[in-house]
Each structure stands twice: as structure tokens, then as C-alpha cells.
């Protein structure tokens, strides 16, 4: 049994090794097939594990493969835990992952770096599985960092464009800012509980023995728990793109579209939600953190939703929509509705992966014309202002997009409706969060409608759009499968059966998941109205579609994403660089460009210049040391009792 646990991670890793070393010899087709096969194999094993979990008595399988770090009290095993929560996520990761691998075969075809792409994709699946399967926080952190690395590699995949490399670095660094919180939270957990294994930590918290812990009798234990959960949440802010760290996700769309679908929509970005739900025992006790989490989630949902209203890039709309939907999930987790959060995570994985893949298909179709005709005139194939009327040319893509879009808009009976409804019901007792989420729900339906109309209806607004062609089978098949899932995914937790609620009970305990008919009816109506409004406003294809729009100040503010990037640039990044180069200039004259030009300077007869410069240096170096010594001595004299 325990060997089975490691197989889902092992299969994609085998793919990584074979494709990395033999990729060139195997050729693009074999590489793609092998990668897809390995991910599918992982899916099959995940299914087997899922069924084992469902029949096992404690609803969990533990497996340990020796010690990773063992020193003193710190003992971190290579331990894996497959329980109802992780097995559900494993199915999503490997299942949606396999579909996206398949789609990629068609999408990445002809790219000179296709082998590398599949290596990254397989590596990502393995890392993501480590993240959800690890039985302790440090192993989760390993997966956490590795998926960040894969995301970095895939965002910068087409690094020939400077913009992409920058987007990749931004994603990596912003994520690492979140990781600061996460790793410190982990350290604080160890200091508080003396262990990093979920099982041992949650057992203690669950028994309310917190006060009798390593902090024996310390009355501040609740404050410590607040600190721990807050630090963990900072990690989640980074990975799940919440305020104020969400700025990386829209830029991350620079990567290949299937990678965006898998990593930046369906799986990796939900890691923060997984982490909170996994730590629900801690968050449950820390009420103030949970309230904060709910508020941040709702605010993120609102702001990102409003930004999506005024985007023109087909992927940017989806990106901000993802941030907004992640806000929903985070808010749900903060409200204690863990099942609703995971439910939305799963349905979102279906319909957002579907939307991204459909968008990829649209872009692919749009590129068809300029590829075929080597047209010198280059128009942006991702700009919705260049599209229009694609309905007839790409029927499968169109229907897939419709199903995904209506699901995102929250129209019954599509899957998104059920999960979003559960979150909104859970927010009823928190007026502020409820109001924000309610507004966001309307925004969502409106921008979805706008996107559908701009892309598929009206008449073609460019040659590329009028000559667009439907994609091949490898791309259509995943679209069809995901459409079905997006359609019926709500069945996971239908009112009445509440299958997911019961399934997750061993991990998150019982929470009253509710179905509120008036609320459901109200929000269905609101969604319909918003969609209709979008239809009326954009149907004629004139509004917003001319390439130089006269944006009003509000819409330009939304288009520029609330100017948050500019704000960060002015408030943090610029001062930071200024400080660093100021310091370097003051203290390190030879430093910055001197070393680069060093040889040149040397040959410029530096011998004469060097001697006075050098003695000056040594003297000033000595001076700094003396200042340091004096300060140190003063400190010691003052502070020694």
C-alpha cells in the first residue's frame, strides 16, 4: 500500500528524467505522448488511492520513507498522507493535468523547445503532488517552492521576449515574499508544538490542550496561534494571489496558455486554499485571523472582479477573473466554510481550465491567418478588439467557452453556480463580506458576458478573425471532456446529497453547508440581468472595439488594475533600488560598473591613479572598522550589567 502512495509522484518524475535526457532523440511527438501517459498513469493511481481511502477505516493512508531532516528534536520524515482532502485534490491535479498535457500536444506543436515544455509540465505535476501529499509542513513547503520554480520556468518559457522574462521574475519574487510568512509560520509551529506533522499538531489543537504545550502554562498561547495562522496566510496570499500580493498572476499569462490553465488557474494557485483548509484546526481556533482572511478574500474578489470589467486581452480577463474567484475561495475558508471553499476550488478547476484552454484555442485559431500568409502586419491575436464572430468558425471552442463562461457567471445548472452559491450563503452572517461578494458576482456575470459577445458574436473585426480556424482533435478532446465536467461538476455537492461535505468530514469536520432558495434565485436572476446587460451593450460590436478607445478616467483606472503596479513601483521597488545603488556608490566606489570596466580601466595607465586611490581606500576601510569597534564597545559597556 505504501509503495502505491509514492507512485503518483514517481510517474511524472520518470517522465521528467526520460524527456530531459532523451527528449532530443525521441522527438516532439513521443515526448508529448510520454508526458501525457505519465500524468494519466498518475491519475489512475490517484483513483486507486481514492478508492482505498474511501474504504479505509480512518479515511487516510499514511506512508513514510525514512527521515529527511533529523537533528535534535526536529524530525521531519519523507512522510505522505493521503486522506479525503488530498485524494480529492490529487484527482484534480492529475486528471485536469492529463487533459492539459493532451491539449498541449496540439498547442505546443512545432515549438523548438517543446521537449523542455513537457519536462516542466511533468515536473510541475510531481511538485504539486508533493505539496498536497506531504504529511508535514516542511514537505508542503518543498512542494510549494518547487511549483513556484516550475511556474517561473513556464511563465518565462518564451523568454525571447523581454517582457516574459520580467513577468517570470516578478512571479518568483512576489511568491517568495509570501514564502517569508509561510516559512516563519512553520518555524513558529515547530517552536510551539515541537513537531511539524499535521497529525500531531492538529491532535493537540483539537484537544484544546494548547495551553499545556511547549509554552507550558503561557497565557499568550492564543496570540501565538494568531501569529502562526497569520504567517501561514501571508504564504497563501502569495501563492493564491490575494491582496496585496496578487500582482504577479495577471503578468503570469505571458506563459503558454495550457500552462496558464494548469498552473495559474486550476491547480497551483489553489495551493493557498489547500494550505488553509489543511490547517483548518489552527484557523478554526484563531478567530481573528479567520475574519481577516475572509475580508482579504472578499476584497480581492471585488477588486480583481472590477479590473476584469475593463480588460481587452482575452487571457487578462480570465487572469483577473481567476484572482477574483480565488478571493471567493479564500473568503469561504476564512468564513469557516471549508467544504464550500474546496467545492469551489474543484468546480473552478474544471471551468477555468476549460475557459483557458478554449481561449488558447481561440488564440491558436487567430494566429492561423498570419502564420499561413506570413503577413507583415502584426496584430495582437489575444486582443478581443480584433476578434468577433468566431462562433461559426470555431463551433467546438464556442460551445466550450459558453459552458465555461456560464459556469463562471454562476448560472444554474452549471457547476459554478452551486459552489458559488454555497460561499455566498456562508457569508450571510458577515454583511461586509457578503456585500463585496455579491457585487463581485454581478461583475463576474457582466465581464463574462462581455467577453463572450466580443469574441464570438457580431462580425469579425480583423482578417485574422475572419480567417480563424478550429483547432485539431488533440485540443478539442480536452475541451469536450472539461465541458462535461464543468456542466455536471456541481453534482459533487448538490443540495440534498452533499457528497463532498460527507467526504471531507474527517478532515474539516461538520459544517452546515446550506442551500438557500431565495439567495439562489436572486443571484441567478442577477447573473441573467448582468449577462443581458453585457449583450445589449456589446452586441453591436462598436463599444470598446475600436482600437483607440476613449477611456474615461474610471475605466482607465480599472484597465490599469487600480494602478497597483505603479504604486508598488513607486513606493517599494524604486526606493529599494535607489537605496541599494546609493549604498553601493557611497561605500563601494570600485563596485558597480568598475569591475565590468575593470580591465579597460587598468589598461588606461591606472598605475598612477591607483596609489592614492588605494591608500585612501585602506584608510577609509580602517575608519569604518574603528567606528564599528567604538559602537560595539559602547553597546557592551552600556548593556553589560
Amino acid at each position: 500500500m505504501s509503495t502505491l502512495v509514492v507512485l503518483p509522484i514517481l510517474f511524472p518524475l520518470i517522465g521528467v528524467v526520460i524527456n530531459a535526457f532523451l527528449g532530443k532523440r525521441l522527438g516532439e511527438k513521443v515526448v508529448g505522448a510520454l508526458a501525457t501517459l505519465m500524468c494519466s498513469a498518475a491519475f489512475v493511481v490517484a483513483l486507486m488511492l481514492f478508492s482505498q481511502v474511501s474504504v479505509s477505516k480512518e479515511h487516510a493512508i499514511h506512508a513514510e520513507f525514512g527521515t529527511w531532516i533529523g537533528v535534535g528534536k526536529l524530525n521531519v520524515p519523507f512522510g505522505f498522507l493521503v486522506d479525503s482532502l488530498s485524494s480529492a485534490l490529487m484527482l484534480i491535479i492529475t486528471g485536469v493535468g492529463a487533459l492539459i498535457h493532451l491539449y498541449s500536444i496540439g498547442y505546443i506543436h512545432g515549438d523548438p523547445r517543446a521537449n523542455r515544455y513537457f519536462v516542466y509540465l511533468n515536473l510541475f505535476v510531481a511538485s504539486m503532488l508533493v505539496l498536497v501529499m506531504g504529511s508535514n509542513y516542511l514537505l508542503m513547503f518543498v512542494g510549494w517552492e518547487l511549483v513556484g520554480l516550475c511556474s517561473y520556468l513556464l511563465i518565462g518559457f518564451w523568454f525571447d521576449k523581454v517582457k516574459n522574462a520580467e513577468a517570470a521574475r516578478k512571479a518568483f519574487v512576489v511568491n517568495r515574499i509570501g514564502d517569508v510568512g509561510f516559512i516563519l509560520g512553520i518555524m513558529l509551529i515547530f517552536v510551539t508544538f515541537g513537531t511539524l506533522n499535521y497529525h500531531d499538531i492538529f491532535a493537540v489543537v483539537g484537544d484544546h490542550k494548547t495551553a499545556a504545550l511547549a509554552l507550558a502554562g503561557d497565557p499568550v498561547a492564543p496570540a501565538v496561534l494568531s501569529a502562526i495562522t497569520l504567517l501561514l496566510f501571508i504564504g497563501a496570499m502569495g501563492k493564491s494571489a490575494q491582496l496585496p500580493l496578487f500582482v504577479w498572476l495577471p503578468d503570469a499569462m505571458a506563459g503558454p496558455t495550457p500552462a496558464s490553465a494548469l498552473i495559474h488557474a486550476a491547480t497551483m494557485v489553489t495551493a493557498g486554499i489547500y494550505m488553509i483548509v489543511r490547517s483548518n484546526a489552527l484557523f478554526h481556533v484563531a478567530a481573528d485571523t479567520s475574519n481577516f482572511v475572509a475580508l482579504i478574500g472578499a476584497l480581492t474578489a471585488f477588486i480583481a472582479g472590477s479590473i476584469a470589467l475593463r480588460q481587452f486581452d482575452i487571457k487578462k480577463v480570465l487572469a483577473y477573473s481567476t484572482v477574483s474567484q480565488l478571493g471567493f475561495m479564500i473568503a469561504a475558508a476564512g468564513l469557516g466554510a471549508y467544504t464550500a471553499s474546496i467545492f469551489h476550488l474543484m468546480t473552478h478547476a474544471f471551468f477555468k481550465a476549460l475557459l483557458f484552454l478554449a481561449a488558447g484555442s481561440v488564440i491558436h485559431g487567430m494566429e492561423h491567418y498570419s502564420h499561413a500568409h506570413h503577413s507583415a502586419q502584426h496584430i495582437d491575436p489575444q486582443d478581443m478588439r480584433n476578434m468577433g464572430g468566431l462562433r461559426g468558425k470555431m463551433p467546438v471552442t464556442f460551445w466550450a467557452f459558453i459552458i465555461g463562461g456560464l459556469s463562471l457567471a454562476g448560472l444554474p445548472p452549471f457547476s459554478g453556480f452551486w459552489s458559488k452559491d454555497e460561499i455566498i450563503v456562508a457569508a450571510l452572517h458577515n454583511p461586509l463580506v457578503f456585500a463585496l461578494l455579491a457585487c463581485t458576482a454581478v461583475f463576474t456575470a457582466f465581464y463574462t458576458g462581455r467577453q463572450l459577445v466580443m469574441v464570438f458574436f457580431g462580425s469579425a473585426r480583423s482578417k485574422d478573425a475572419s480567417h480563424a480556424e478550429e483547432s485539431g482533435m488533440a485540443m478539442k478532446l480536452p475541451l469536450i471532456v472539461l465541458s462535461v465536467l464543468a456542466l455536471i461538476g456541481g453534482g459533487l455537492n448538490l443540495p440534498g446529497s452533499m457528497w463532498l461535505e460527507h467526504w471531507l468530514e474527517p478532515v474539516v469536520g461538520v459544517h452546515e453547508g446550506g442551500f438557500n432558495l431565495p439567495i439562489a434565485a436572486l443571484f441567478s436572476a442577477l447573473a441573467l440581468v448582468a449577462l443581458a446587460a453585457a449583450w445589449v451593450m456589446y452586441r453591436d460590436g462598436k463599444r470598446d472595439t475600436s482600437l483607440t478607445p476613449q477611456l474615461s478616467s474610471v475605466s482607465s483606472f480599472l484597465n490599469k488594475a487600480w494602478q497597483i503596479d505603479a504604486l508598488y513601483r513607486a513606493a517599494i521597488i524604486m526606493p529599494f533600488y535607489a537605496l541599494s545603488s546609493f549604498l553601493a556608490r557611497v561605500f563601494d566606489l570600485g563596485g558597480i560598473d568598475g569591475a565590468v570596466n575593470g580591465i579597460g580601466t587598468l589598461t588606461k595607465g591606472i598605475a598612477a591613479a591607483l596609489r592614492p586611490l588605494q591608500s585612501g581606500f585602506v584608510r577609509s576601510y580602517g575608519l569604518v572598522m574603528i567606528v564599528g569597534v567604538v559602537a560595539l564597545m559602547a553597546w557592551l559597556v552600556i548593556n553589560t550589567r
Partner: protein
Amino acid sequence: MQDLMLILPPLIVFLGATALLLVDLKIADDRKETVAWIAMFLLVGALIAAVMLLYFNRTGDVLYGFSNMILTDRYAALLDIVFALIGIGVFLLTLRYNRVHQIMRGEFFVLTLFSIGGMMLMAHAANLVTIFVALEMFSIPLYVLCGVARPRLDSEESSLKYFLLGAFASGFLVYGIALMYGATGTLDIATMLKQVERGQAPLLLVIGAGLMLVGLGFKVAAVPFHMWTPDVYDGAPTTVTAFMTTATKAAGFAALVRVFLLGPGAFVGSLVSAIAILAALTMIFGNLFALAQRSVKRMLAYSSIAHAGYLLAGIASVANIGQSANAVIFYLATYAATSLAAFGVLSEIGSMNRDEDHGLERYTGLAKRNPALAWVMALALFSLMGMPLTAGFTGKYLLFQSAVSSGLNWLALLGVITSVISAFYYLRVIVHMFMKEDATVAANNEQYYVSKPSLVMMTLASVAVVALGLLPTLLLNMFA
């Protein structure tokens, strides 16, 4: 006789180096590689001796010798191993680099051996005088080594700067030792520790220890005693820089561990907080300066300052000194492996270009010119950054965990934040290597080749980086 057994590793190195000095006279200039191989052979001998020390003293007792002037315990033996391995690694690099840069001289190896011997002695120090003697023994050869690339001006400049400021710092060290003796009437670290534990830590002792901290802080490049570092590391031949960033740092921290973590320093609150502040300054300035560099070699010099800051955080974590000492020694080993891998790449680049220009442009498109070099460098940079499953992560985690366990939450926070900052400048190199194309490569399609010994060294270092990340227990078990 038992006394001699206790310091067998440094003894082998010293005696061997002395003999090698004579043998070198008989070896023609164009066959100096032989000297390098003999030197490596000696270090293998020292390595075996150190492993034996570890093996025959499995209980981990502290054994004293030479009238309590030296001791041998696990840490000493492990550090001996680290120094020997660093030496072997550096010598493997010299085979190509020193030949290309025309510094393939016999004295290079003899001096390095003497320095290694002094470092090993430092690891075995039980007495403040031993610490001072060992410090000078490993420093004086280093002063010479920095200038070995004469008549290259920046090499000579590097040597002179290091010597002048080093002498200055040694002054503080000696004065500190004298004050500590005046305060306690002893130079023996263990005796001193007993007095302090009984609550006798007069101001004189604290001041003395503070001055010692200055002297040792200079060697490990702690801010504000770090000013020499970038110029010296940048100017010295790359093989010497590789040796200094790894071995000198380890030797300095060996002394810091003995005096401040396992010795009397750990029991004086004001000293501990002073070290914590130094650690914070070192992390901040090291990383900020590194950010502004355009030369990879100089960036690594500042990065080595930053890493001294992380290590100092371990020295300041006195709640569980045993665990902190483990963390520090472990980190030294991981940093040595990582840094050697990185400098291996630098020395190969320096050999290919026949100069010491390490501007970022030199690394543009390296993945095309030589994928192996680029991957080794990427692995090393990820480890320096602290990516999980590399040695750097495990090392940093253990250090910061011991800081948090000692209530130094702010210091750990700072450490993690500055590690994030470090991602900026490490990634920049990776971007240049993998994600940019060098126009000149496309033009003449010149491939870099790697010499066999360097490749062996870089492979071993890379394996160590991965192994210490995946299975750190291999090494950690030796502490327990």
C-alpha cells in the same frame, strides 16, 4: 604520542607541506601539476586521519592534549574533513586555471597547505592562544596567495589591502585575548566558561570578548568589518577566492563557535545581542550591496558577506547551543560545497577567457556554450538562494529555526526577507545564462569546454549540494 594522534590531520598537512617545499625545488616549472597532485594526496591522508578521529571517538568525547592547548571532538574532526575537502576541490580547479593564468607555481600549493593546516588547528583550539596562533598561521599564507598573480595590479592591491587590514584586525584580537586573560586569569576556554557560568562575567571580560569578536568578525567578513572583502575577493585569483570564501569563513566560524557559542560568550547577554545586531547588519548590507553588482565575482563576494550574516544568526542563537552549533557547522559544509561549485564555474570561465572579467555579459547565453557549466551554476545559485531540496535550504532552515527557538524571531524574519532579496541577484545570473542569447556566440559558435579535473570537482560539489538537501541526515547523524 596520544597528543600527536589528536592533531593528526593538521600534522600531516604541516609536515607534508614542509617536505613538499623541498620536493618542489626538484620539479621543473612546466611540470608543477605534480606538486598539485602531491598536495592533494597529502590532503587525502589528512582526510583519512580525520575520519579515523571521528571513528575511534564514536562517543564524541572531548579529548584534550598538549597541556589543554588543543582538543579533539566531533566538530573538530568534521571541520578537518571540510577543510581537507575544500583543499582538494580548490587544487582540482588550479590544474587548469593556474596554468592558464601563469600562476602554476609550487609555492601556491605549499602556501595553501600551510593555510589549511592553520585552519585545522583552529578547529582543534582549546585555548585562546591556540586560536591566535592558528589564525595567524592560516592568514599569513593567505596574504601572499592573494597577490600570487603578480604582476596583475588588482591581485597585488588585493594582497596589500588584506594584509594591512588583517594586521589591524589581529591587533584587536590579541588585545581582546589579553583583556580576557586579565579578567579571568586564564586563557583556557573551558576554565573561562566555568567562571562565567558561575556568574562571574566582569566588564573587562566582556570588552575583551567584544574585541575578539572584531578580530574574528573581520575574518568572516561581518559588517562593519567587511570592507576589505569585495576588493580582495574580486582582485585575488579565482582559485584563491574560492578557497577564501569557503575555508576562511569556516575557520573563522570554527573559532566563533568555540568562544561564543560553546564557550563563555554564550552566557553574556550583551555579547549575544551584539552578535545578533552584527548578524542583522551583515545580512542587510551584504544582500543590498550584492544587488547592485554587475560582476558575478563581486556579487558572490557580497553574497559571501550575506551568508556570514546568516551564520552569525546561528552564533547568536544560544537557547540550545548544541543544536545551534550543529546548524552552524552544517551550514559551513553546505556553503562550502555550494560555493565551490559556483567558483568552479567562475574559474573555468576565467580560464576560457584568459582574464578575470566576470561581468554578467560573460555569462550571457552560457547554457548554449556549455550546458554543464550553466546547470552547475544554476544549481549553486538555487542553493545559495535557499531553494528546498538543495543544501542551502536545509542549512538555512536549521539556522533560522534555531534563531526562532532562541526567541530571535526578528532576526529570523530578517534572514528570510534578505534571502528573498537575494533571489533578485541570483536569478539575474540564471536569466542571463539561460534566457538570453549572446550575439557573439551565434557569430563564431564558440563552445566552452571544461577541463576534466574541474568537471570532477564540480560534479562532486553538485552531488554534495543535492545530497545535503535531500538527505541531510547523512551528515547530521555525525553530530549526534
